[in-house]
């Protein structure tokens, strides 16, 4: 077992935290996808609730702004019948001098069972699970540039549902890989689930050093990178990237790396297009592609709730089993 899997799994190999996909094997990822299947139908019922987390308190701790991720986590927890606290932690909390540790230990004292955490620092969720609140289930909702594992799992669910599986697939991830926690988690998920090839497509300024070491092939040309791809994942390009000399202009990026009807033509005819959102139309993706027949972008949002229900319920159950054992 790696240290990451030791931290995330209990002695029976069940999730007790969900921090990153590092160290999680294919069987466990598949179990998350299978569990998601059963929750997708919950969303289609007239009464969209199941009692799996009844009596449990889930706190959403977003140290970084987010609308969609926070909302889908909130909906997921409520559909599982949990009590949900949304705690707005503005940056002013740190300016008051309270450390992250002190703040979380206060919340833990209020008997929360689970923290859904988004934080600007890579490793923040690990830190909390390791050093602050080991008995609270920690769900990583995005930490710095490191990981966004529920987003990656909903992308995997989307792929499995629309491509029937992972074997033989060529997946191209296009755009700002350097700053993207989504890309890092997607690469981990895709390589674990056994696709044929994961490609990253970007100019050198938007690729981290030694990215090949994560098991991907690197392309600087969109045409080459998309050739015969089954899945095209584009990433959001933050506007501030222009200010740090990473790119000359949005326009030049769009010309070279933007996903348009023309460039999508390099991929397989039945290729699907995905995007973690929010979209910058005309920057990384053309409107016609985002809204086109090959786009699964809105499906991704829809599956996001079911995937998070799966992760929340599996993690809570693994954490409870650990707590019972240790008490």
């Amino acid at each position, binding site marked *: 077992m790696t*240290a*990451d899997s030791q*931290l995330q799994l209990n002695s029976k190999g069940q999730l007790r935290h969900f921090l990153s996909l*590092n160290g999680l094997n294919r069987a466990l990822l598949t179990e998350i996808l299978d569990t998601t299947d059963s929750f997708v139908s919950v969303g289609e019922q007239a009464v969209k609730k199941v009692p799996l987390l009844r009596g449990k308190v889930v706190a959403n701790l977003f140290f970084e702004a987010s609308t969609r991720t926070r909302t889908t986590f909130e909906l997921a927890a409520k559909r599982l019948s949990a009590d949900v606290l949304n705690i707005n932690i503005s940056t002013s909390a740190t300016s008051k001098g309270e*450390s*992250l*540790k002190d703040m979380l230990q206060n919340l833990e004292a209020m008997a929360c069972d689970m923290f859904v955490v988004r*934080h600007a*620092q*890579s*490793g*923040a969720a*690990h*830190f909390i699970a*390791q*050093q602050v609140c080991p008995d609270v289930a920690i769900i990583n909702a995005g*930490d*710095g*540039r*490191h*990981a966004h594992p529920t987003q990656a799992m909903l992308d995997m669910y989307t792929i499995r549902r629309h491509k029937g599986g992972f074997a033989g697939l060529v997946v191209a991830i296009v755009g700002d890989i350097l700053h993207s*926690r989504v890309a*890092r988690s997607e690469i981990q998920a895709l390589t674990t689930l056994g696709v044929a090839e994961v490609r990253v497509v970007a100019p050198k300024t938007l690729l*981290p*050093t*030694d*990215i090949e*070491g*994560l098991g991907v092939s690197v392309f600087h040309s969109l045409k080459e990178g998309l050739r015969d791809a089954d899945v095209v994942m584009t990433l959001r390009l933050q506007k501030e990237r222009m200010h740090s000399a990473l790119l000359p202009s949005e326009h030049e990026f769009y010309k070279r790396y933007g996903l348009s009807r023309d460039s999508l033509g390099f991929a397989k005819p039945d290729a699907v297009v995905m995007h973690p959102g929010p979209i910058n139309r005309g920057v990384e993706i053309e409107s016609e592609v985002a809204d086109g027949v090959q786009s699964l972008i809105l499906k991704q949002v829809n599956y996001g709730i079911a995937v998070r229900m799966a992760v929340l319920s599996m993690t809570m159950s693994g954490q409870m089993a650990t707590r019972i054992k240790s008490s």
Partner: protein
Amino acid sequence: MTSQLKLSITGGRVIDPFTSRDEIIDIHIAEGRIVGVHTPPPGFQPDRIIDARNLIVSPGFIDLSARLGEPGFAQKGTIHSETAAAAKGGVTFLCCPPDSRPVVDSPAVVKLICDRSQQTGFCQVNPIAALTQGLEGEQLSAMAALQEAGCVAVSNSWLPIKNNQILRRCMEYAATFGLRLFVNAQDASLAAGGCAHEGLVATRLGLPAIPESAETIAVITHLLLAEQTGVRLHFSQISAGKSAQLIAQAQRQGLAVSADVAIHQLLLSEQNIDHYNALSHCQPPLRSLRDQDELRQALADGTVQAVCSDHRPHEHAAKSEPFAETAPGISSLETLLPLTLKLVECGVLSLNTALQRLTQGPAQVLGLPCAGISVGATADLTVFSPTESWEINADTLISAGKNTPFLGETVAGKVKLTLLMGRVVYED
């Protein structure tokens, strides 16, 4: 100060890089000095005989960089606690960097540090003076006055000099007085925001990275300006193998340039920050295994003259944050000897070379008039067992900082006795 006893250290293997001595021989000490090697002076009656059989007797270790907490950061350590840790580590002379609070940019601060360390009496402390006022990188510090107060070297620590024009003038001014310039080589813009070596581990962990070129570019800049200005240049705590190559090249061309490396750079690598292990968060960052190997070679072949502890004690809270927000550094005075002996065990250095890099090497860098273990020399000595093992943990460390990634490790090499000017300042 406690009274100075007459001592005889008998039966120990005396390894003295200053005099190239390596033999089992007795040493006799009176009034803070070595008064006899092998044979005592006529009529010498020791108050105490120290049995050093199976032990090694070495000149006291000289550490080119150890932070003491005080002044300014007493929550991390005090001059008392950290110099006591130095004595326990066999260190009898240490340099503390100028980035305390207040900064070491006035004779008053030098005096404060020296007075307090003399009062505590565990270890001789020589503050490195600030190169610029407030370490702000803009105006020359009062180097002549700082030298008069006792400083032998100037440095801007990790803080940037505003531009190369100012750097050049700093060098010229330091060279005027024969002050040594200690450089922590780092290009501020390439290192900005980074906390880990730019490589696969940082990529996987999503940590903002510091490329090797942040160091090597600064090394080249300093080498070129040192050649022009004639300043005596010393690179502190280099981390990249390529830096060592550049320094070796300059040395071959006759430039008076030296370097040291922190002990942990020789034993750890970027792998040790995996799982966000903040105890391995260092400045400069732990680099690749290749860098580690090249630094080991540079230490062995003499390109790098000294190993330092780069001791940085921290309170628990400073390491208890998400990785990038933790304070960099390792508490390392007490582990300097056993960790250096690891390099002997794995064949990087001979025992004699290892001790040279802890004693004569750094003494030369500082231009200290040490005479090693010879009659008339100051009795700054470390007696240690090369084989006795102990566990590094929060209880065995007396430094206020328990922050070391070696916690829980059992290591061989234990200081049994440290003498400072003939006084026992530590005894196991």
